[in-house]
């Protein structure tokens, strides 16, 4: 019987020896490292040009603010060569990276043309001077447009090679490091870790216990728990691999996380806006209570964009993104390896392992470490070093508009590519049917997560998030 099963499964698998991506090979076989190479490449280029009195302004073109459609058309036509150059830059850089990651460049090109055209349109909509009055925030519009195209019109699946949600958002995060002073990471990082750890542990325990109470298997309970507590879909796949989760259960956990993550993209900024939360406080709350990096950045960027446009919202757009990043990336994401390692120990020593298993290796903490965080920190160090001898006034006068502003604009492009890709790759009818029990268990955790995150962000640690400035 075992041989029959083996033969059948082998025919299905039909694979040779598995490819290892550990060790030095990871440097070119994982998208985390490619996001570092591309992101830091841009930061380095900007720094070198700045030293020569030049900058990336020309290629970091964005649509200008407009009130009449003719203004927009005129601006786009006048800057057509710059858009073409920028498109070429992205296309060449992404093609090289995705080719190394095993994707076909020939498939990437047509999809990226579509993505770039849509991104220009989304960016332009966001620059309309009435956009905020109609809630036309680019991240939310990008998500809705993507969802409408993929779920109502439909696109060939091979185009998904161009819609790399995680890859784009990681490049954006590395570029974000260039705008965040190292001193802020050092100052607010421990607070972020304290707040995020409190909420993460509580969320995990609640979801795990609720799942077990509802009769779900331990591995699925762990995937749901860490998915809600740490980094969403990435956590679910990491924990599934660490504890040997069933493929179907992994899909169920991922579906549950996706549904809640997309709901929260709209709900968190909406509630924060209704309460007129400070930009930094809202960023911290979103960072504590969103479930995936890309979804969280969409929510944080949407709220940050309201600063200065909607009366009553104090702070700055940067504060929202800084607080979000510190909370989500530094406070939650970097610990995924430890969660995986601990749960692997529990799974192999405590839970039933009738089929499969392995001795947990502490090196797993490093293997699963989200390496793009290193790029984020190095980008921050690099810009801090380049601007070391500038006073705040000099920084705001010379470095901010010439050195940092083009990187911020390129970061916004990367985020829009990511937000569009979320919608374009989320096909609701293709997601696994998750069933009611996993959804209920996760939802109980969502209530705890959102409530606890709100209390800690708006009351306990509010002074820190409100004073998050350069």
């Amino acid at each position, binding site marked *: 019987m075992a041989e029959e099963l083996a033969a059948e499964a082998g025919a299905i698998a039909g694979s040779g020896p598995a490819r290892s991506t550990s060790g030095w090979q990871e440097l070119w076989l994982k998208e985390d490292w490619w996001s570092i190479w591309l992101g830091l490449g841009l930061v380095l280029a900007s720094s070198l040009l700045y030293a020569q009195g030049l900058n990336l302004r020309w290629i970091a073109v964005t649509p200008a603010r407009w009130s009449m459609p003719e203004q927009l058309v005129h601006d786009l036509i006048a800057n057509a060569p710059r858009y073409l150059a920028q498109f070429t830059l992205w296309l060449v850089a992404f093609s090289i990276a995705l080719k190394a990651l095993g994707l076909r460049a020939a498939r990437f090109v047509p999809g990226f043309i579509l993505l770039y055209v849509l991104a220009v349109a989304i960016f332009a909509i966001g620059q309309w001077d009435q956009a905020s009055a109609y809630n036309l925030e680019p991240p939310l519009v990008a998500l809705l447009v993507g969802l409408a195209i993929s779920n109502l019109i439909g696109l060939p699946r091979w185009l998904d090679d161009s819609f790399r949600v995680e890859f784009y958002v990681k490049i954006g995060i590395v570029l974000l490091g260039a705008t965040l002073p190292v001193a802020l990471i050092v100052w607010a990082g421990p607070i972020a870790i304290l707040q995020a750890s409190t909420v993460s542990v509580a969320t995990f325990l609640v979801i795990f216990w609720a799942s077990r109470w509802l009769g779900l298997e331990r591995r699925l309970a762990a995937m749901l728990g860490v998915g809600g507590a740490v980094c969403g879909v990435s956590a679910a796949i990491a924990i599934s*691999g660490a504890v040997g989760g069933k*493929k179907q259960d992994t899909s169920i956990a991922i579906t549950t996380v*996706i549904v809640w993550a997309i709901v929260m993209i709209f709900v968190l900024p909406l509630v924060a806006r209704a309460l007129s939360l400070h930009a930094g406080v809202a960023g911290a709350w979103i960072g504590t209570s969103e479930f995936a990096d890309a979804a969280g950045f969409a929510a944080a960027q949407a709220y940050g964009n309201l600063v200065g446009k909607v009366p009553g919202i104090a702070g700055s757009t940067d504060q929202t993104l800084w607080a979000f990043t510190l909370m989500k990336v530094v406070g939650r994401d970097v610990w995924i390896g430890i969660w995986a390692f601990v749960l692997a120990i529990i799974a*192999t*020593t405590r839970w*039933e392992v009738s089929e*499969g298993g*392995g001795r947990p290796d502490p090196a797993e903490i490093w293997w699963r470490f989200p*390496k793009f965080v290193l790029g984020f920190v190095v980008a921050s160090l690099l810009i801090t070093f380049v601007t070391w001898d500038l006073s705040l006034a000099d920084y705001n006068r010379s470095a901010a508009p010439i050195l940092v502003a083009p990187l911020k604009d390129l970061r916004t492009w990367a985020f829009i590519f990511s937000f569009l890709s979320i919608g374009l790759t989320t096909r609701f009818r293709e997601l696994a049917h998750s069933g009611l029990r996993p959804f209920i268990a996760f939802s109980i955790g969502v209530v705890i997560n959102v409530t606890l995150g709100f209390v800690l962000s708006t009351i306990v640690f509010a002074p820190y998030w409100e004073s998050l400035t350069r």
Partner: protein
Amino acid sequence: MMRLNALSLRGWLGRRKAGPTAFSTSKVERSATCGSCRHFNNDPGRLEREIKGLAALSSARASVRADDGICALHDRLAGRRFRCHHHSGIATLSRGSTRERCFATS
């Protein structure tokens, strides 16, 4: 009663297992990791196709996945360094030229 048990620490952790079921240290099993098994596939493209929703908010090419893949025999995710009694691999030895016969330890 079962649900109350699920809320206890023992219900959370489960009973500690005795014997070699958790991970075996026999000579054969030490050499038979899932990474060399023909049922195991950790191609990221395949993972993204088979695990619905994975590419929507994450990626099979991310560091967090490490070398994990799908075991087609058990329909589970498994680490490349996992060991299994149903190992049925065609292991590639150094330089990728020599192949072993498949074997099973159960």
